[in-house]
C-alpha cells in the first residue's frame, strides 16, 4: 500500500532557518571566510576535492563552510554541483614524472636521484598540541636552499630498467567512466582506480590496513611518494593542438611489493598505484595497497577470501555518498512500511499465543 502524505513545510523552513543560525554560531566571534577555509584548512579542502571528484579549491571551501565542517556533507554538495556542469572535454593523461615536487620520499632507496625531499609534512612532529596556535601571531618564512627545477625520476623506472619490477603496459585506450556509465564487474584496473581515488578515505584506509594485518597480505613498501603540481593539458579541436588549461596538485604513491612469482609471472617486484587530487598522503598510500590487493587475479595469486581482494566488496562500498545516502534514508518517513510490519508482528503474536494456550 502506498500512501502519499504531505505537510511539515513550515517545520522544514523553521529547521533550515535554525540550521543557518547554528552554522553562523556565536555572532560575537568573527565569521569564517571561504578564503580562510581554502588557505588554512587546506587538507580538508583537498579531501573534499578528491572525494567530491572535482578539483576546485574555492568550491570545496564553500562546501565545507555550508556543511559546518561535515566533510561527507561537503563532498555531497560538490558531487551535486558537478552534475550541473557540461563536460567540456577530457585531458591528456597527466605526466606525473614532470611533477614540480614539494615532497618526494622513498622507503626503499636511501640515495635516489633527486633526493629525499620531506616537504611540508606532519612526519617527525611530536604530535603535541601547540598552544601557540591558540594565539594569533606571525609565522616565520620557511628556509630556502638552492634548487634545481628539473623533474625528478620515478623510482619504479630505476627498478624497471633491470626488469626487477613488473612494468605497466603503456596504452591509450579510452577508460570507462563510472560517472557516465554504471560500474560493471569485473572492473578493469583503470575503472578500479577511478572508484578508489574518489572513495572514502576512512574506508580505503581500513581496507589497506586489513591487508597489512594479513587479510590479503601483499608485503608493500612505499617505493615512492610524491606530492606536487602537474600541468593539465587538453587537445583543443578548434586549435588542432593541445594546450595547458591549468595545474593541479596531486599525491602519487607507488608501492613495491614482494612477489615470489606465479604460474604465469617470473619472480619480480609488483606494483600498487595511488594517485589522488591534492595533498592527500594517507589516501594515496592506502589506495596503492588496495589497488595491489585487487590485482590478485591478473598476477595469478590465490584468492584467500580477504575483503580487500574482493572487488565487489571494495568497489561497491567505497563511495561515501552512496553509502551515506542509503544509510541515512532509513531515518526518513517509512510509516507505511513500518505499519505493515507492526500488523504482521501482532498477527504472529496472536497466533503464537493461541497455539500456546491450545497446548496448555
Amino acid at each position, binding site marked *: 500500500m502506498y500512501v502519499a502524505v504531505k505537510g511539515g513545510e513550515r517545520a522544514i523552513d523553521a529547521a533550515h532557518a535554525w540550521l543557518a543560525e547554528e552554522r553562523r554560531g556565536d555572532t560575537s566571534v568573527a565569521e569564517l571566510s571561504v578564503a580562510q577555509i581554502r588557505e588554512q584548512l587546506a587538507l580538508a579542502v583537498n579531501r573534499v576535492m578528491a572525494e567530491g571528484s572535482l578539483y576546485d579549491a574555492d568550491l570545496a571551501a564553500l562546501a565545507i563552510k555550508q556543511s559546518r565542517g561535515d566533510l561527507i556533507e561537503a563532498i555531497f554538495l560538490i558531487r551535486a554541483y558537478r552534475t550541473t556542469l*557540461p563536460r567540456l*572535454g577530457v585531458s591528456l593523461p597527466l605526466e606525473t614524472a614532470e611533477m614540480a615536487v614539494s615532497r618526494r620520499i622513498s622507503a626503499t632507496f636511501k640515495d635516489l636521484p633527486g633526493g629525499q625531499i620531506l616537504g611540508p609534512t606532519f612526519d617527525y612532529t611530536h604530535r603535541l598540541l601547540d598552544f601557540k596556535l591558540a594565539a594569533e601571531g606571525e609565522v616565520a618564512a620557511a628556509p630556502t636552499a638552492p634548487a634545481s627545477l628539473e623533474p625528478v625520476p620515478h623510482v619504479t623506472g630505476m627498478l624497471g630498467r633491470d626488469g626487477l619490477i613488473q612494468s605497466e603496459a603503456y596504452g591509450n585506450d579510452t577508460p570507462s567512466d563510472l560517472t557516465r556509465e554504471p560500474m560493471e564487474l569485473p572492473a578493469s584496473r583503470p575503472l578500479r582506480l577511478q572508484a578508489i581515488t574518489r572513495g572514502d578515505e576512512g574506508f580505503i584506509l581500513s581496507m589497506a590496513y586489513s591487508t597489512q594485518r594479513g587479510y590479503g597480505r601483499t608485503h608493500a613498501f612505499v617505493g615512492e611518494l610524491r606530492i606536487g603540481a602537474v600541468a593539465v593539458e587538453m587537445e583543443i*579541436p*578548434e586549435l*588542432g593542438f593541445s594546450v595547458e588549461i591549468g595545474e593541479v596538485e596531486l599525491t602519487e604513491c607507488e608501492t613495491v611489493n614482494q612477489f615470489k612469482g606465479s604460474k604465469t609471472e617470473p619472480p619480480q617486484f609488483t606494483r600498487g598505484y595511488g594517485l589522488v587530487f591534492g595533498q592527500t598522503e594517507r589516501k594515496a598510500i592506502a589506495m596503492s595497497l588496495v589497488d595491489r590487493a585487487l590485482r590478485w587475479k591478473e598476477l595469478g595469486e590465490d584468492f584467500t577470501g580477504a575483503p580487500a581482494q574482493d572487488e565487489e566488496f571494495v568497489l561497491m562500498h567505497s563511495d561515501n555518498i552512496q553509502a551515506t545516502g542509503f544509510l541515512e534514508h532509513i531515518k526518513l518517513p517509512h510509516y507505511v512500511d513500518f505499519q505493515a510490519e507492526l500488523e504482521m508482528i501482532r498477527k504472529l503474536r496472536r497466533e503464537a499465543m493461541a497455539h500456546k494456550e491450545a497446548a496448555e
Partner: protein
Amino acid sequence: MTPEALLGGFQTAPIQSARAFRAALEAMARPGTIWEVEGAMPPTPMSVAAGVLLLTLCDGTTPVHLGGSLDLPVVRDWVTFHTGAPLVAAEDARFALGTWADLTPVNRFAIGLPDYPDRSATLIVEMPRLDAEGARLTGPGIKDVAHLSLPETQAFRANRALFPQGFDTYLTCGSRLAGLPRSTIVEAV
C-alpha cells in the same frame, strides 16, 4: 577551422538549451506534436531545429554520425566546435543526422542491449516538410491517435518490433521538430 563554423551557437546557453531541452522532451513524450525551437544558426544545409537538437543533446561523450548530404567540412567543424562530439561511422553513433536517404538503411544504427536498451542511437532526420498528417501514430504519449508526415512507415514498424530495444527519431524541418520514440506504433494510411 572555417570562420563560418565558429558562428551560430547559443548566445545564452543556459536559457536557450533549457528551453530547447523542454521542447525535445515534449516532442518525444507526445509523438506527433510539432514544436518550434530557436537559438542555433547552423551552416547550410543543416536546419535550425537539427542544430538546436545537436547543441542541446550532444557533447564529447555522444558520438555523432553525419549522413552524406551533411558530411561537409563546415558542418563537421560546426559540430566539433559547438558540441565537442566525435564524428563517427553510423554503427558507432549515439546521434545521427541526415536526410532519410542519407540515413537508410537504418538497421546500421545501435538499438541498445537487452540489459541497456538506452545504449541506442537517436536519429535526427532532416525533412523537406513536416506536418501533422499522413502516417497514423498510436501508443504511449498519444491520447487517441496522431498523424505525422513520416518518410516511410516500414522502417518504423520494424523498429517498433524490437522494443524495448530500437532507435528513437526526431524529424526536423526549418525551425520545427517532432519526435517519434521507438514505442510508437506506426501504420500507413
